């Protein structure tokens, strides 16, 4: 029988590895895809065409109004009954991306609206189209405003990826669960998993501070 100390150290490697090969890629890929969806939804939401903005509003409402775990289960356990069978990892990525897409859309929309109207006009007056003005003038300014709220979204996502363990994806928490079930040391293993999540989030918060600093270089202090 291993002592608790030994178990801690022998399980730390697999748990951290689960974080590096499971949790982090899952969070990063889902976040990048999610932001792309969110930008699209935010622009649809800002559209003057009523139907388009209504579709975006409906999407955001459904995503925010239903539990992430339910969304995950619909995709992994529900889709096969209509003939769509996907492996667990893509299912998790799809669910998390769609989820981030709904939450981040409102952040991006608010950030775009926070850029003064005069910036659009200045873009037009130098001859730019709406699309070019958005890309060159508005989004870079909106990015600065949206870093803090989007960082929150990302940190939440990192923790939410633990739900993927429930659809058999091997990641940090699933590794901890397996060791715990085998050793029956639930308290130790779950606290250990919690600590590793916490450290990942501390690193992310530091990175957020750095990005904010960099984007603040053109603002009066």
């Amino acid at each position, binding site marked *: 029988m291993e002592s608790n100390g030994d178990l801690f150290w022998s399980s730390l490697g697999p748990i951290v590895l689960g974080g590096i090969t499971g949790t982090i890629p899952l969070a990063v890929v889902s976040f990048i895809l999610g932001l792309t969806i969110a930008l699209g939804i935010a622009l649809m939401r800002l559209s003057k065409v009523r139907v388009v903005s209504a579709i975006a509003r409906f999407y955001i409402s459904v995503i925010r109004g239903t539990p992430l775990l339910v969304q995950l289960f619909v995709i992994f356990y529900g889709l096969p009954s209509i003939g769509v069978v996907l492996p667990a990892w893509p299912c998790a990525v799809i669910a998390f991306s769609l989820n981030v897409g709904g939450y981040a859309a409102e952040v991006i929309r608010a950030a775009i609206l926070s850029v*003064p109207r*005069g*910036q659009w*006009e*200045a873009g*037009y*007056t*130098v*001859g*730019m*189209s709406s699309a*070019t003005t958005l890309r*060159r*003038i508005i989004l*870079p*300014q909106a990015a*600065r405003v949206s870093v803090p709220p989007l960082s929150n979204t990302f940190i939440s996502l990192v923790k939410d990826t633990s739900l993927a363990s429930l659809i058999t994806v091997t990641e940090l928490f699933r590794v901890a669960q397996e060791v715990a079930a085998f050793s029956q040391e639930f308290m130790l293993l779950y606290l250990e998993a919690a600590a590793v999540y916490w450290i990942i989030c501390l690193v992310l918060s530091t990175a957020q501070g750095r990005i904010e600093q960099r984007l603040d*270089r*053109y*603002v*009066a202090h």
Partner: protein
Amino acid sequence: MSPTEPRPAAGTADAVLTLRNLHKSFGDTEVLKSIDLTVRRGTVVALIGPSGSGKTTVLRCLNGLEVPDGGSVDVAGELRIDFSKPVGKRERAALRDRSAMVFQHYNLFPHMTVLENVIEGPVQVQRRPRAEAIADAEQLLERVGLREKRDAYPFELSGGQQQRVGIVRALALRPQLLLFDEPTSALDPELVGDVLSVIKELAEEDWTMVIVTHELEFARQVADEVVFMADGVVVEHGHPSQVLKRPQHERTRQFLHRLLNPF
């Protein structure tokens, strides 16, 4: 260029811009009732009038920032836009390509340096070679005394400096027509002079300009024609010595009196 006599009426051949019967409403408010205006090449037109008279709206229509509800605009005899029909993006863009706007609140791009602000249009829109656009920009910045600020961000500049960058950004587009929307209204009084003297120099170089302003003395010195607007119509227009010194209409006299005797 400050002729003491009104210029002889020129033919439409040298008109950079002709507005006919332009009108525009916002909701139920009719801001422009029927505006006719001709801007001739190399001349400076000053639009004056009380706030809410529609002068800024006229300027914004010229830059395609507002679309009039009716009337037409002729640009340099080569483009005619009839606003009684639906106006496409291409026509608005064509209007915009011929003019450049200097805004009351500068509207510089805060995330770009002074130089980047100035070359953005020439490089991104006009597709001019970057090196050429930079050389051009530096020369223009030199003229307004801001060459050493090329790598500064807008927040590091005073209002007067920002507005001079705003003017340079407009000039760098090499427009046929420069539009100024109350270019000194947001400035501290001691910074107004720097900006006005830059605009005055441009007038002397025969740039074609339309300026919305409250600076009557400036208008008198710089403008070839003063247009007085009130309640969405042109009340009177003519040489500054006439409109500002011997106004024909009671409404103009009232306005000038208020402006010259604020207390």
